[in-house]
């Protein structure tokens, strides 16, 4: 299994000289199964360049899995060239919206309404098929198997585990480790803690022993504690602890905070490696970098 980052930035695209090394596009990951099957995780602005790179392969079968539908994970979809070309078959998977109870198709179609985009969803020439995913669904095609796990973000967010020919990769999308909303002195504290401990256990099981874990690591732990609690994102220390606990082989830290320069990102990363006393027996921790392809 191969995979390539086409976008590693969180929240908003950040082109410019200070983000050249790690890249400014928002989340998009290309995965190739053992038989070269194409799976795309998220459709942030990075999917634009991926779409252009796929042109020589048309007509093509594509399976897209959206972790959630916040802008930075879907914004590139209207500019993804395969959707305009007849003969391409594209399956788009994602969760429904709880609040409106809209399907993934309805939610995505909105960003192509007249006020936002000149081409309507109904005018797209490719053969598009939408799949509303439910928790624990398993999607299989060719030699690929994709399962999901509900993670914690302000909107429903599925983490995906992709398996092919004995290799496995998990991508979290956006995820904040659930925290107790009660104070330790509140009578509700213990019961709530029990629920979130169980959730954490389930998520760690989902990560367990994968070859590659790609995990939301938007914040440094200090900035998280100061002002980002409840925003739905991970931190260096929490990502590293989870990767160790679930015995993953390699862990890619992604969803880089948009105001962060490459230099600042590396500084925080090195400090976190030292602080978390990463040893030889621990997973390898790598900053996700746009345009780089890896083998799982």
């Amino acid at each position, binding site marked *: 299994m191969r995979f390539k980052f086409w976008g590693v930035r969180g929240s908003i695209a950040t082109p410019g000289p200070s983000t050249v090394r790690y890249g400014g596009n928002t989340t998009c990951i290309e995965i190739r199964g053992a038989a070269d099957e194409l799976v795309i995780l998220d459709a942030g602005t990075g999917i634009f360049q991926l779409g252009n790179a796929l042109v020589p392969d048309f007509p093509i079968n594509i399976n897209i899995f959206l972790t959630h539908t916040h802008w930075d994970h879907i914004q590139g979809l209207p500019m993804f060239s395969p959707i305009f070309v007849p003969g391409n078959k594209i399956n788009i998977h994602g969760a429904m919206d*709880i609040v409106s109870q809209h399907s993934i198709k309805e939610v995505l179609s909105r960003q192509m309404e007249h006020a936002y985009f000149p081409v309507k969803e109904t005018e797209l020439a490719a053969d598009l098929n939408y799949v509303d995913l439910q928790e624990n669904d398993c999607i299989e095609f060719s030699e690929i198997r994709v399962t999901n796990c509900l993670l914690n973000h302000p*909107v429903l967010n599925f983490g995906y585990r992709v398996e092919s020919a004995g290799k496995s990769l998990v991508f979290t999308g956006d995820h904040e480790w659930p925290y107790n*909303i009660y104070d330790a002195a509140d009578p*509700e504290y213990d019961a709530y803690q029990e*629920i979130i401990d169980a959730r954490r256990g389930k998520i760690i099981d989902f990560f367990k022993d994968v070859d590659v874990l790609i995990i939301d690591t938007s914040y440094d732990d200090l900035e998280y504690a100061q002002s980002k609690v409840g925003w739905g994102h991970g931190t260096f220390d929490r990502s590293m602890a989870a990767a160790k606990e679930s015995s993953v082989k390699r862990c890619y830290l992604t969803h880089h905070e948009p105001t962060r320069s490459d230099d600042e990102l590396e500084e925080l990363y090195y400090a976190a490696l030292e602080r978390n006393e990463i040893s030889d027996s621990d997973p390898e921790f790598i900053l996700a970098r746009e345009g780089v392809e890896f083998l799982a």
Partner: protein
Amino acid sequence: MQIIHEDLLAMVETMPAFPQGVTKVLDMCSKVDCSPKDLVSVVERDPVLAMRVLKLVNSPFIGLAQSISSISHGVAYVGMNTIKNIALTVAAIGMLPRENRANFDMDKFLQHSLGTAAVCKKIAGLKGVKETSSSDYFLAGLLHDFGKVILVRQRPDEFSEAIEQAQTKKVALDVVERLIYGIDHAEIGAVLAAHWDLPDSLVRAIRYHHSAGDLSHPSLLEQVVMVSNLVVHKLDFGASGNYYPAELPKSIETNLGMDIDDVISIIGDTDALFADAKAFASS
């Protein structure tokens, strides 16, 4: 006029929440740093808000692997922001008017529901129910009479007549409801809860809150809701339009090892137990 199940579902989609809940939700959500635990405490005290949140998070279209049985469980599972937005959506519909054609005192009804919820949670604690499940007991107590909210809103004239008849003839309200509507408030609440895929234990607790004694093996939750409702009636806390509820069956007294008076004496300081309910319902 008879009520058929299909009618019921249409009745609820645009149902506003209680003014106490709506006001607090709108106030809290206007602040960026809205405290999650404060918002949970409002949602879990308003029967309409609570029911709506449970309905949406348990929707089979969403397909969560686990049935969500309390508001805080919902927050831990789908996140605070989702619960906040559901609450705001319901709050935007408006408020249940305090005055209604059924002459049904909604503030007293809210007191009755919250009082029952508090007693349920208290008995659950006494019975050794785990802390993680005590919020399920609270919620079942809160929602046991949800069917009445539907009747007040959708069939006010008939409901007013049902209450009056029950009072004049000194019979239980659910008996008169069955004669008028062909269905009683317990069944109405249960049909809705079941249709919305709420946890089966909650559906049953609502359905059998007047008839758990007829079941061969009633669950602890079903029995606790039934007892708590009667305790709150006996203590005359709030009002739910039912002035002659059927007595607690002996079988339930035996199963629980206590009758209504025992429960009241164990509770002790009822003012303290109901303080929260009173404060919320009169806010």
